[in-house]
C-alpha cells in the first residue's frame, strides 16, 4: 500500500488527468499579523464613557491619562471626538491609577457597562465572547484581561460552558511557545494516499456559493492558505475563483449532488461527504427559488428560479456497504484525495463512526446540533440530535474500544466558539475541530440570525446582494481571519504549556485534565501515558 502512488503513476494513462497535480498557480498568503481596525465607525465595547459637556472644562487630562486612547481630541479642536469605547478597560483603570473618571477635576466623566450588552449575542455566544472575537480579529491575539471580557465560556449552562481545565499550579518551565506542536495529521490510514498535515488543529467549515459572499469565501480561503489548513466549498459547486486555492480546499459531495463534477473532485486534496449537518440533521437542504440565480443555477446544473431540494439521505446510501461504494467512487476519481464523512450526532453516532471507518473514510467529522448554518428550521436547531459535547467522548471511546482509534481522524464541529472549546473538544477525544461561526463573528457578525431573510445578511457577510456584499474588502476580511487564527493558536499554545503538554496530539482524549462544575469530580481517571 505504501507504494500506491508509485503504482498509480504507472497507471497515469488510464486514470483521470489532474489527479496528481494542480494546474492553476496557487495563491500565496503570508502568515503576517497586522492590526485590522473594525469596519464600523462605532465599535462596541463592554463599557461606555459619557461626558457631561456642561461640566467639562476641556482641560484634556482624560486624554493624557488614558493609556488606551479612549478620549480623542483632534489637534486644533476644542471639543472631544466620540470616545473609542471599545478600547475602554472599565473599572480596571482605577487599580492601575489611570482612570479618567478619577482624574477629571470636575467630575464630568462617567464609565458604565454598555447597556447594549443585554441585546447583543445570546446564551451560547455571549456579548463578551463576540467582543473578544472581534478583538482577536483586530489584534491577532486574545484580548488582555484588562478588558474584562469573559470569552472562555458562554452562558448556556451545560456542555463546554460547565467544563474547565484543571491547570496545574506550576507551569512546566521547559516548554517554550515556539516548541509546541499544534499540527494535525489528517491521514492515519497508511494507505499510500498523501499524509496531509495541517499546522493548526482546525479547518474552516463548508459554506456554499450563495450562502456567503464571494469575499467571505475568499477570505476564508486565504486564511486557510496562510495557516496551511483547509476551507470547504460547502454544497452547490466549486467556483472558478477558488482555483488558486485548490490545495487548501475541501469540496463537498452532498445529497443533492449539486455542482459535483469529476473535474471538481479531481482538483482537491480532500473530498467531504455531507450526510447531514448538525443544525438540521435529517432534513436535507432547500435553496429557495429566489436564491437560485443564474450563476448559482449554472454551477449546479439546474434552471434558474426553481427551488432546489437536497434530500435527506443520500438516496444511494442505506447501509455502510453503500457508503463504502460512494467512498470507492470518489477514491477512484481522485487517487490522491482523502475522504471525510460529515455526519450529525444521533444516538448511534458511535456505530456510524466505526462503520464509516470500515468503509474507508480518513476523516470522521461529527457535527453537533449547536452549530450555525445559513438557515435552518428553529425546531431542528433546538431539538434534533445530541450536543457535540456528548458525541465526542462517545465516538472516541467506541473507536478506541474497537481498536481503530488511531486509524482515523476524528473532527468535531457544531458549537466550537473559542480556543477553550477547541481544547476541551480535543481533551474529550477529538483530534481537531471545524470552525464556522467564529469566522463569521470575526468578520463582524452579531448573530442576528437573519442570514436567510430578504437581501440576506445586513452585515454583508452571508449575502450575495450587489449592494451589501461589496462592503467587505477582501484584504480586510482575509487579514481579520488570519489574525483570529493566530489568536486561537496562541491561546492553544498557552493552554498546552499550562497543562505541560508539548503537542496538541498529546491532549487528545485527556479528559482527566478536565473537570465539570456540576459534578463532584470524584471519579479516578487513569491516563495511560
Amino acid at each position, binding site marked *: 500500500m505504501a507504494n500506491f502512488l508509485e503504482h498509480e503513476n504507472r497507471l497515469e494513462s488510464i486514470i483521470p488527468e489532474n489527479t496528481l497535480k494542480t494546474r492553476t498557480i496557487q495563491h500565496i498568503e503570508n502568515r503576517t499579523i497586522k492590526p485590522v481596525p473594525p469596519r464600523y465607525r462605532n465599535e462596541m465595547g463592554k463599557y461606555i464613557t459619557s461626558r457631561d459637556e456642561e461640566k467639562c472644562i476641556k482641560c484634556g487630562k482624560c486624554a493624557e491619562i488614558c493609556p488606551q486612547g479612549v478620549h480623542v481630541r483632534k489637534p486644533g479642536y476644542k471639543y472631544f471626538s466620540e470616545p473609542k469605547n471599545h478600547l475602554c478597560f472599565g473599572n480596571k483603570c482605577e487599580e492601575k491609577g489611570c482612570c479618567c473618571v478619577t482624574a477629571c477635576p470636575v467630575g464630568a466623566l462617567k464609565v458604565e457597562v454598555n447597556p447594549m450588552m*443585554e441585546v447583543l449575542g445570546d446564551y451560547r455566544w455571549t456579548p463578551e465572547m463576540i467582543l473578544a472575537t472581534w478583538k482577536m480579529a483586530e489584534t491577532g491575539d486574545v484580548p488582555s484581561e484588562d478588558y474584562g471580557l469573559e470569552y472562555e465560556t458562554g452562558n448556556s449552562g451545560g456542555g463546554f460552558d460547565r467544563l474547565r481545565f484543571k491547570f496545574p499550579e506550576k507551569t512546566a518551565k521547559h516548554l517554550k511557545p515556539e516548541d509546541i506542536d499544534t499540527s494535525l495529521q489528517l491521514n492515519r490510514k497508511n494507505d499510500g494516499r498523501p499524509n496531509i498535515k495541517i499546522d493548526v488543529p482546525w479547518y474552516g467549515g463548508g459554506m456554499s456559493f450563495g450562502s456567503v459572499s464571494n469575499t467571505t469565501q475568499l477570505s476564508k480561503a486565504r486564511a486557510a492558505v496562510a495557516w496551511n489548513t483547509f476551507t470547504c466549498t460547502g454544497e452547490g459547486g466549486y467556483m472558478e475563483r477558488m482555483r488558486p486555492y485548490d490545495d487548501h480546499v475541501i469540496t463537498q459531495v452532498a445529497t443533492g449532488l449539486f455542482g459535483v463534477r469529476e473535474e471538481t473532485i479531481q482538483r482537491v486534496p480532500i473530498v467531504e461527504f455531507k450526510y447531514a449537518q448538525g443544525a438540521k440533521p435529517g432534513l436535507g437542504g432547500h435553496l429557495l427559488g429566489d436564491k437560485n440565480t443564474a450563476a448559482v443555477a449554472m454551477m449546479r446544473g439546474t434552471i434558474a428560479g426553481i427551488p432546489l431540494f437536497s434530500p435527506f439521505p443520500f438516496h444511494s446510501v442505506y447501509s455502510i456497504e453503500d457508503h463504502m461504494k460512494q467512498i470507492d467512487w470518489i477514491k477512484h476519481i481522485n487517487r490522491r484525495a482523502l475522504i471525510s464523512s460529515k455526519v450529525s450526532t444521533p444516538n448511534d453516532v458511535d456505530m456510524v463512526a466505526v462503520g464509516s471507518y470500515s468503509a474507508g473514510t480518513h476523516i470522521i467529522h461529527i457535527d453537533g446540533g*449547536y452549530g450555525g448554518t445559513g438557515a435552518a428550521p428553529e*425546531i431542528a436547531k433546538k431539538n434534533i440530535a445530541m450536543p457535540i459535547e456528548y458525541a465526542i467522548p462517545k465516538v472516541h471511546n467506541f473507536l478506541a474500544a474497537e481498536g481503530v482509534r488511531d486509524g482515523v481522524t476524528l473532527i468535531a464541529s457544531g458549537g466550537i466558539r473559542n480556543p477553550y472549546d477547541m481544547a476541551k473538544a480535543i481533551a474529550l477525544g477529538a483530534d481537531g475541530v471545524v470552525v464556522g461561526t467564529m469566522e463569521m463573528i470575526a468578520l463582524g457578525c452579531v448573530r442576528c440570525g437573519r442570514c*436567510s431573510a430578504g437581501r440576506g445578511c445586513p452585515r454583508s457577510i452571508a449575502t450575495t446582494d450587489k449592494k451589501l456584499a461589496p462592503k467587505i474588502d477582501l484584504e480586510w476580511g482575509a487579514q481579520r481571519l488570519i489574525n483570529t487564527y493566530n489568536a486561537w493558536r496562541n491561546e492553544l499554545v498557552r493552554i498546552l504549556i499550562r497543562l505541560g503538554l508539548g503537542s496538541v496530539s498529546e491532549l487528545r482524549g485527556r479528559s482527566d485534565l478536565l473537570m465539570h462544575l456540576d459534578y463532584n469530580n470524584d471519579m479516578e481517571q487513569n491516563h495511560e501515558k
Partner: protein
Amino acid sequence: MPEKYHIETKPVPPRRPRIGKYGIIDWREDCARCHNCVKKACVYDRHRDEIKYIRNMEDVDALFFDCMGCFSCVQECTKNLLRLSINPEYQKLGNDYWTPQIIQTTWLQAETAKIPVSGAGYGGRFSGYGFDSMWTDMSEIVRPTRDGIHGREYISTAVDIGKKNSFLVMKDGKLSTDIPPIISTPMPVIIDMMPENYALPMLDAVIPETAYRTELIALIDSKKWPSGSADSDKYLPHIAFYFSADAPLLPPGIIRKTALAEIENSDNVNLRIKELKEINPDIVVSVRVELNGEGIRRAVELSGSGVEVIHVVADTNGKQTGVKDPLFIKDMIRIIHKSLIETGRRDDVTLISGGGIALPEHVAKALICGTDLVSIELPLLAALECHLCSVCAGEKSCPAKIRDAGFEYSAGRMTNLIAAWHDQMVELMGAMGIRDARRLRGDVGRAMFFEQLEEETFGKLFGTRKQA
C-alpha cells in the same frame, strides 16, 4: 396510499401593533442631519419607511419594534446617537413557562402558517426544564433510513383513538371478536377546552370551525352547546362533548352525530359510559383525569376497568396540581405509559395528555414519552395575539382585544398555527426516520434524555452529579 393530509392556509395579518424583541433608541436632539444618514442604509428599510409607520397612530411604535437587531445603524451613526435595547413590552409577554419567545413564534406561525426558520445556529440554553431536557434522534447511515421530508415516502401523522384488540378470534371462518369503535385523527392532537380564566365566549364558535378546517376534534363543554349559530351537521363530527359529573346528557340526536365524548372522572364513570354507549354504540368515551396527587394512580386504575380513552391533564404550565413538588407532564406520561405496559394493558387504552404543550416539538416529545396524542388549548389562544396575561375577565384590559377578533381572523390564525405545527411534526419525524406517528408512541429509543446522556458521558468521567 391514504389521501395526503393537507390543511388549507392563507396568511392572516395581525390586528394589533406588533411587539418586537428589540427597540431602537434614537437621541434625535444631537442629530447633525448628515446628508448620508445611516438610517437610509437600513437593510430592512425601517427608517426609510418611518413616515408609513407614523401614519398609523395606533401602531406608531412599530418602527422601533420591527427592528431586526443587526446593529448596523447603531454602529455607523456619525454622532453615535442610536442604541438598541430589549423591548420591555416583549419581556412582559407570557410567564416563566410560556416565554416571550414561545408567544412570539406562535404569533408568527399563526400569521404565516410557515415553519420558523433562522440562521446563525442555535443560541439557546444547552438544555432546560421539562421538554427542553430531551432531544429527538435522527437516523444516520447505519440504520435503515426513511426518506426525509423531501423524499418519496409519505410521512403520516395520523393516530387512532379507542381500544385496540391485541388479537382476533375466528369461528367457523367468521370473525367472532367484537371490534370496538375506533376513531382516526390526522394529527396526534385534540383541541381542549380553554381554562376557565381564558374561556372567552367568542371562542365557542371559532374552535369548532378550526377543528372542521383542520379535521381535528375539539372538546366542547356540553353546557355550552348549542353555541351561536352553529351548523350542527358540519361541526358535530369534529366535536367531542365534555360532560361534567353533574351535566345532563345532550339529546340523543346530537350524541349520535359525535364520535368521541369525554366525561369527568368520578366513581361512576362506567355507568356514565354505559349511558352514552346505549345512545350511540359507536361512540368512544374518554375519561378526563386531573393530574393532581392522585391523578397518575387513577389513570392506571381506570385502564383496568375497561375505559377506552384516558385524558390526563396537568395545569397550563404542564405541572402536577395540588402537590408540593409537582412533576412535569413529560415525566408523568412516562410513569403512566410504563405502568400500562407493565400491566399489559397499553393497547387497551388510548392516552391523551394535556397541559404545557406549547410548541410543536412538545407534541413529538410527549408521544415519545408514551402518550398517544396530546391536547392543546393555550397555543390556539396565543394564535390570536394573546399575551397570556390572564386578565381576560376585565373586558377592557385585554391587550390583544380578543373579544373584538373576527371569526375569519380567529379561525384562520388557529388553522395556520395547526398547519405549521403539522409541518414541524413531519420535519421531526422525517429526521427520526419515522413515517407513522403511531410508531412514535413510547419509542424512547428515538429520543435522548439529558439525565441519561449526562450520566453516560460526564458521569463516567467526572463521577457523581451535584444535587441541584
